């Protein structure tokens, strides 16, 4: 009897436990469902009566922590908090924050302010999904805390989607070609300034037993960003609207002679045997290691490369950099920017605070602060030469602000088209397809997407 009782009690306990667990499950359901219904928060009202607006309520900021770190974010948020003591700022950050916050975006309860960087967050997709606030009108007259017009302060203009602006580039980074200045000096090779130079010196490099060019075939957006896109712009006489048209899924743009001309340059590099055969299968780290070991002379990469590999750089290695080598002699250098943007959530509850935060971070003072704390140039025009930013960041900033550089403003392609171009470029570098096939393949995807 006792044993029976024991069993009965135990089973009862187990049943109870499962019931509570099941209860948990349904509670969670509710928790994710309800926010969309009680959306209007009570505390968003602002005291506009008293000249300077006082920001109150909750303000949520989502920022991904990756290569640029979070030092700048911590600092700028602390400063913003000090300036707005009545505001309750909540930071949501980390390398996994994009995945973690996804349910909130889907549930219509997103954070107010978002930094679009890292995996699983794509600005074009967010615009298409109707997740971002249209900033077009606001930016027309929008000024920052110092009273400067924000748009005038930006080195690269925001991307436009059907003429509308949803997100503002915060980072200014550039794709480009790197080499080892020390090695070039030792071997007497000339640092290239244009495509003809590049071909000439590559011939010498090859003759000396070094492979001229390595890239990461596992992530073909490196070669696309640093070689193909600048080549297209150069072939289009420095006019980057062709890339913007491509990003807007206009089939004619892909059929323009500039695209074919650029692809043919890659074919030329391939057929001359300049591209390291290892490229096709290796990831970025492996390609960068081979480059640092002087096994390959040139590598297409981004300005973050010295920072990323700082622990593995051999002594005496001296980075040489040019945004692009695909221009003909006499043509301007083309810099394809790489960026990360910030935006306001369309369904955010405290847009007032989010706009104030935009005004706060797009100020001249933040230009050097960002460069110092994140190790990359900021998209805000401002003299950072006096700041403590690393030297290569200052050099790069100088390059990107030079009148002789054509700076391609940030462009995000449709994800399907982007992938198709990456696959096709990979196939092109191993002679699996012709440039014409590259174009027909990609335009097929564009037509499908544009539907």
């Amino acid at each position: 009897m006792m044993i029976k009782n024991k069993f009965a009690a135990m089973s009862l306990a187990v049943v109870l436990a499962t019931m509570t667990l099941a209860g948990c499950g349904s509670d969670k359901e509710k928790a994710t469902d309800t926010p969309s219904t009680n959306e209007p928060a009570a505390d968003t009202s602002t005291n506009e009566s008293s000249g300077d607006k006082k920001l109150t309520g909750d303000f949520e900021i989502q920022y991904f922590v990756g290569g640029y770190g979070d030092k700048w974010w911590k600092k700028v948020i602390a400063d913003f908090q000090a300036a707005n003591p009545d505001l309750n700022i909540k930071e949501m950050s980390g390398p996994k924050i994009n995945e973690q916050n996804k349910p909130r975006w889907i549930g219509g309860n997103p954070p107010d302010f978002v930094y679009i960087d890292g995996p699983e967050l794509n600005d074009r997709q967010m615009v298409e999904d109707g997740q971002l606030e249209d900033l077009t009108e606001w930016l027309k007259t929008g000024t920052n805390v110092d009273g400067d017009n924000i748009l005038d302060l930006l080195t690269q203009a925001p991307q436009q989607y059907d003429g509308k602006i949803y997100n503002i580039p915060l980072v200014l980074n550039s794709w480009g070609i790197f080499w080892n200045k020390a090695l070039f000096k030792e071997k007497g090779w000339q640092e290239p300034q244009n495509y003809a130079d590049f071909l000439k010196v590559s011939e010498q490099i090859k003759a000396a037993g070094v492979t001229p060019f390595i890239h990461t075939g596992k992530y073909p957006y490196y070669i696309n960003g640093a070689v193909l896109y600048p080549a297209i712009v150069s072939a289009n006489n420095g006019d980057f609207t062709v890339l913007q048209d491509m990003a807007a899924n206009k089939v004619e743009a892909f059929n323009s002679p500039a695209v074919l001309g650029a692809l043919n340059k890659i074919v030329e590099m391939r057929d001359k045997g300049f591209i390291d055969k290892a490229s096709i299968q290796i990831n970025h780290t492996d390609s960068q290691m081979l480059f640092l070991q002087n096994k390959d002379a040139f590598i297409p990469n981004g300005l973050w490369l010295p920072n990323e590999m700082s622990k593995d750089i051999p002594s005496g290695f001296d980075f040489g950099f040019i945004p692009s080598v695909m221009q003909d002699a006499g043509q301007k250098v083309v810099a394809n920017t790489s960026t990360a943007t910030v935006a306001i959530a369309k369904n955010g509850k405290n847009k007032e605070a989010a706009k104030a935060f935009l005004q706060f971070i797009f100020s001249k003072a933040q230009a050097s602060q960002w460069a110092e704390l994140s190790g990359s140039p900021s998209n805000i025009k401002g003299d950072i030469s006096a700041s403590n930013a690393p030297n290569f960041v200052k050099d790069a900033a100088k390059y990107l602000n030079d009148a002789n550089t054509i700076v391609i403003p940030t462009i995000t392609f449709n994800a399907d088209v982007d992938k198709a171009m990456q696959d096709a470029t990979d196939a092109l570098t191993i002679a699996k397809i012709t440039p014409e096939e590259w174009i027909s393949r990609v335009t097929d995807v564009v037509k499908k997407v544009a539907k």
Partner: protein
Amino acid sequence: MNTGSAKWQRTLFIASFIVPTLAFFSLFTIYPVAKGLYYSLFDWSGMSQDKEFIGLDNFKALFQDPIVWRAIGNDYFLVLGKIIGIMLLATFFAVSLTRFNFKLAGFMRSIFFIPNVISVVVIGVLWSFIYNPQIGFLNAFLSLFTEDKVTIAWLGFMNHTIWMLLPPAIWAGIGFYMILLIAAIQNIPASYFEAAELEGAGQWKQFRSITLPLIWEQMKVSILNIMMTTLNGSFVIVWIMTEGGPDNSTQVMGSYLYQMAFRQYHFGFAAAIGVLILVLSLITTVVLQRLLRHETVELS
């Protein structure tokens, strides 16, 4: 009255085991599967608040997508290659470690089992280095026999790169099935083999007529298990080593699902791929079970 109470207690006792299991099974298996089926009927980016019901359009698109067909082909290539490779080698090792008494048998058994202890992620990275064209072991080894340095990009062929994923997959799988078969062989009474030997049967004859029929049940389970784990889990090794590239030549259904859901923002389409994996797994299981039906010989 008394019997009624005893019956009730018995029912409660059984329920206390079944109900929690069923609850967890429903929560973690049935619910996600149902949800996956549901999402496969929508055009949804995976991030948007709105999803559009499009019926079976995702499945129509699925069958018009050449990459899906390639992924299915690659998956079944891996299934077939792994079944043949793992079963041949695992059986060979199991028999040689049990039927031929030699000193290092115990040691060898441990060695062969090691790959099973290593995480698949590590195996992927390890083999990436073996295949590395510049600093890899394979090219360095081949270079010993050639005048020029061998610089083959093992994971960068125009087509059929999927072949190169077979060796790591087989290598990683042998140990477990070997142990399974060793256990089966050790269950066979030694007298059977002794009797056969007295009758003049050689090792091969003994293997064909005694070992194989008596371990067939375990082999069947192994084959089914290899098939299921490959269809559902080939994603890991593909994603670590090639991410489906170059040019989608090593794409399997799992990797394409991931690519579509989280890189190209077609969550509904990805869910449809998930449903496809489920359906193909079920069909293949049924078909394989029919094919492998064989009179089971039982020890008496």
